[in-house]
């Protein structure tokens, strides 16, 4: 078709064969992809040397099969250890994990904590849509208290994880949380994270209009309004405190600690020195 409009990212960053993508109308996934690709375009200019690793769930489909790069779509919960193996085997690669809250914070939660503890040289993007969208909208460890899902039809009795705070305490070099209503800030954090070493963690609150919104809200707009009005920047929150029902967003921490790769390389030097001394 001669009058077909093709976005300049298609063919460069996105696979033409899989366009138009199959995400639900109103889903935040491709807006996040947009912000991320803009950041990569600005910092690197291409996907060369990038490897994307994702698990199981809707967010895992952002890179696989959409990104025109090496993409590794792995077992549920296991993108971080897989990405760890890839990065350590070839430290030249930019290894990025993109997956959902169920994948990274529930079944894969332990790997996430340990990757932060190791300060593994990975960029981890957690798309938090507050539920398991792909399997029909079940409870996630991020589902807000008393919110309804198909497995908590009378309200969620559990407390949600604050994954960003968890990452701060576990030792990640960079931690940010934004929402789909803060796309420019998100892009800026991606740019910053792309230039850093160690573990960089970016959480994005994103709507699941097909499942979560239907169970809890009137419409998608209500959630977007919530993202705009019920969020408070971490800098303000740390001074003034957080009100009930408020979600803290912003850049939580920026550390300059050496990443695992640099530490391991130094360790090999040390090992060889000890060996030669014998």
């Amino acid at each position: 078709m001669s009058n077909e409009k093709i976005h300049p990212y298609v063919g460069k960053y996105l696979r033409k064969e899989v366009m138009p993508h199959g995400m639900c109308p109103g889903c935040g996934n491709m807006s996040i992809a947009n912000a991320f690709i803009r950041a990569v375009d600005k910092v690197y200019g291409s996907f060369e040397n990038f490897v994307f690793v994702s698990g199981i769930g809707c967010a895992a489909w952002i890179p696989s099969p959409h990104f025109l790069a090496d993409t590794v779509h792995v077992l549920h919960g296991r993108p971080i250890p897989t990405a760890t193996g890839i990065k350590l085997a070839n430290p030249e690669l930019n290894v990025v994990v993109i997956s959902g809250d169920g994948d990274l914070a529930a079944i894969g939660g332990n790997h996430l904590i340990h990757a932060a503890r190791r300060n593994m040289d990975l960029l981890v993007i957690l798309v938090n849509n507050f539920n398991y969208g792909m399997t029909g909208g079940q409870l996630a460890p991020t589902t807000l208290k008393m919110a309804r899902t198909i497995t908590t039809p009378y309200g969620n009795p559990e407390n949600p994880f604050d994954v960003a705070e968890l990452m701060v305490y576990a030792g990640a070099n960079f931690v940010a949380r934004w929402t789909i209503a803060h796309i420019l800030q998100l892009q800026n954090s991606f740019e910053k994270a792309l230039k850093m070493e160690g573990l960089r963690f970016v959480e994005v609150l994103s709507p699941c209009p097909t499942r979560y919104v239907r169970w809890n809200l009137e419409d998608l707009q209500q959630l977007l309004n919530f993202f705009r009005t019920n969020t408070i920047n971490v800098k303000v929150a740390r001074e003034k405190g957080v009100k009930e029902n408020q979600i803290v967003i912003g850049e939580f921490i920026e550390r300059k600690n050496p990443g695992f790769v640099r530490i391991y390389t130094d360790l090999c030097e040390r090992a060889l020195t000890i060996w030669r001394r014998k």
Partner: protein
Amino acid sequence: MQKYISVNDIYPPGKHFLMGNEAAVIGALLANCKFYAGYPITPSSEIMNLMAKYLPLLGGVFIQMEDEIASIMAIIGASWAGLRSLTATSGPGFSLMQEGIGYAIMTETPIVVIDVMRVGPGTGQATKAAQGDVMQARWGRHGDQEIIAIAPSSAQEMLDFMILAFNLADQYRVPVIFLPDEIVGHAEEIVSVPNMNEVEIVSRIEPSSANEVFFGGAPDKVPPFPTLGKGFNVLVTASTHNEMGYRRTQDPETHRKLAWHLVNKIRLNRGKIVKFSIEHVDGARVGIVAYGSVYRAAKEAWVRAKKEGLKLSLFRPITLWPSPDVELSRFADELDVIIVPELNTGIYVQEVERAVKGKAKVLSLNKIGGGLPLYPEEILSFVKKVMREL
């Protein structure tokens, strides 16, 4: 940056007195294994301890992961990034690794997994030998599949067959399960360490362009391996995928082709993969089939039988999977009875029965050792009893 050392700097060519697990480490390093991820578990930990010591000196990567699930996924990732990768574990850890092994089968990822078999199920007896994981190695994952499993029976074979394991993994793009039992892993024996330049390494085949088939393809052929970071824009997924890696989970024909490819690349090449040994005795009507540490006891029983003038043949599968079924069938041709001694309730005997299809009577000499091995005397007295009843 200082120059890395070589394996032979640590273990010069020649004779060494080594534990089986240590010999496996030397074999892996000689095979150019450059990545190890693992989690401590008895009776396999010596492998990990030595990898932690040596890999940083050899330009490789060692990492202790948070669990066995992470370990198996890390070696899969490292393999995709181009390194020969290894993990070692035992029973409980091997159970945790099964989903990852299934992922490696579906994505055609070459990896080597050592399971030093201990007593189970559950925690069982961590320090004691058993042969209970033989079917788990074969069928531990969900879905139709073929893998390769090798059972060494000495410290020397821990070294030699480890090199073979890496070559087979790369050649067939399949996980190779290395299946010593605790006795083989821990027994200390004389091992001949070869010169690293004389070790035969059969590497993966790299694609020549981005337009080649990366997955599946012809049933008996193994597609080239598109290493990450080389511009192939490879799509790796364990969901049903076409030859370029695109998910096609709703298409029966794509899945049918892929499933048969994964199975047939091993089945149709079995002649090149299967490894076994036979001690044939003319006129023997009784034979033994044994593997792992039990093979050593069976061999001793065979030697003693020979001294006593008893006619006894001995067959030893080296690749438990794919099984040497055609060869076992031929072995059964001249025999009335086949005895299968095993350190379990009788597991591989089922495969022997399947292979010989009633040509000979198959008897299980099974033993739940609970920490005790199968002794040559036990095997020999069973053989004599069988011979008396012929």
